[in-house]
């Protein structure tokens, strides 16, 4: 198949910037946090440098979405609305997804809107784990001395659970976006914002139909 020109705008510049700043912040948080989580990898944390880095990264992690939401309130609302809107097509998609992702027939998948249910799940995980991270993190950072040891102990666990959730879904997100044989244009679209017409039609049929007015 000859390379098709990528003319459909999928992401706007500011969304792309937001995505990558947030990604870098999260990766820094993952690395500086995971070394405390995985047994035997703690050596780099010695001296507490990673604790400082973790605190700096979290400021970016928390404030980029806030700034983005203030600059783009409609996009932010859209994000929340999409995450929690689940229709019949979404559930059909979920049941057919395993076959599709293991290389099955593309035609069997119900057409999708701007994002598919898999991505909705990812967004849901981001919101849930983000809330868990935030609450438990604030407790451990600022209220260590004023709270009972039990609250601290369970905050550590909540942070762990949020980490497992978010990290596993991040792996899935990265694999699908970067490596999966079917997602040929995902990564590039998060770079320059564009995808080809056929990719748009195959992956986000409903959205593309609405956008272009043709089928």
């Amino acid at each position, binding site marked *: 198949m000859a390379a098709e020109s990528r003319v459909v705008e999928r992401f706007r510049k500011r969304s792309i910037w937001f995505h990558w700043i947030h990604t870098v912040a999260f990766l820094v948080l993952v690395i500086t946090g995971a070394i405390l*989580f995985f047994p035997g990898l*703690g*050596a780099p944390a*010695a*001296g*507490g440098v990673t604790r400082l880095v973790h605190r700096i990264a979290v400021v970016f992690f928390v404030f980029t979405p806030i700034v983005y939401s203030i600059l783009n309130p409609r996009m932010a609302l859209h994000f929340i609305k999409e995450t929690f809107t689940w229709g019949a097509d979404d559930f059909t998609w979920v049941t057919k997804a395993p076959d599709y992702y293991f290389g099955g027939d593309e035609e069997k998948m119900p057409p999708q809107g701007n994002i598919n249910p898999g991505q909705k799940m990812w967004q849901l995980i981001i919101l849930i784990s983000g809330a868990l991270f935030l609450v438990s993190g604030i407790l451990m*950072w*600022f209220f260590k001395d004023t709270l009972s040891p039990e609250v601290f102990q369970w905050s550590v666990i909540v942070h762990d659970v949020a980490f497992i959730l978010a990290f596993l879904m991040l792996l899935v997100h990265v694999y699908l976006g970067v490596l999966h044989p079917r997602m040929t244009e995902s990564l590039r679209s998060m770079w320059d914002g564009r995808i080809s017409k056929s990719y748009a039609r195959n992956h986000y049929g409903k959205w593309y139909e609405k956008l272009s007015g043709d089928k």
Partner: protein
Amino acid sequence: MELTRKEFLKAAAGATGLMLLQPASIAMAKESQTDAGLAMLVDITKCVNCWWCYAACKDYNGLPETIKPDPSQPPQLAPDVWTTLYTVRNGAEWIARKQACNHCTEAACVEVCPTGALSYNKLGFVQYDKDKCSGCGYCVEYCPFGVPQIETNIATGAAVMDKCTFCHDRVTSGEPTACSAACPTGAITFGQRRDLIAAAKERVAELRPSNTGVRLYGDKELGGLHVMYVLDDSPEVYGLPGEPAVPAAASVRSVFKWLGTGLTAVVLAGFGLNYVVARIRMARSEEK
């Protein structure tokens, strides 16, 4: 609490006798290496609140010097206070319990330390490696005795912890711990664990008739503490938990560690499988 002159002398003599016996016992402990043979016994009924243990600890470990503190405002354990007296008001008097790391056999701090800064040494004591410490403070929050103390800068997170080493270099070269050597009444004794337990039981049997509250604490708690106590009242009176335990959260946490690692491995393997299968099936359907 009364301590007669005769009792004082007896205790002092006993302590000296014990000290003379030590080199041989330490040699035995060294031979077995893994044997948690050495321990300390704190007999609360012999403590006269003199703070010599406190001063000796500071002196030996090179911690900022202090004078005998006001017992109504005793110094709290801190990175530069490795042992202190937990004081309790008893009528007009202050009675005290020596407070320091108990060197648990099943230590919550070691369990939760993410960097291995806290670990068990060959003698079974809980050792702390400052260079490995990340300052996370988990040990502070998980220790059932509230022993590790940390000073954290809230903005940067930089933190300092430090605690009793069980005078590691002294005991490995055949000397008793600084606090036990300094104790003038024999309230703090150092030696073979089993000898100390035997002595403690004798002491309990001796004191029981006049006080039913007398008990031995630490022989079984948390797999056996390396600092045991003869108490004359319930542990709570002396700021010790009645039934110390590694907090449940610590065990939950170690489960999550392995769960997280395991799931990550499963997911990564799943990607490999998915990639190969998807490639093959997609190539086949293109051929058609």
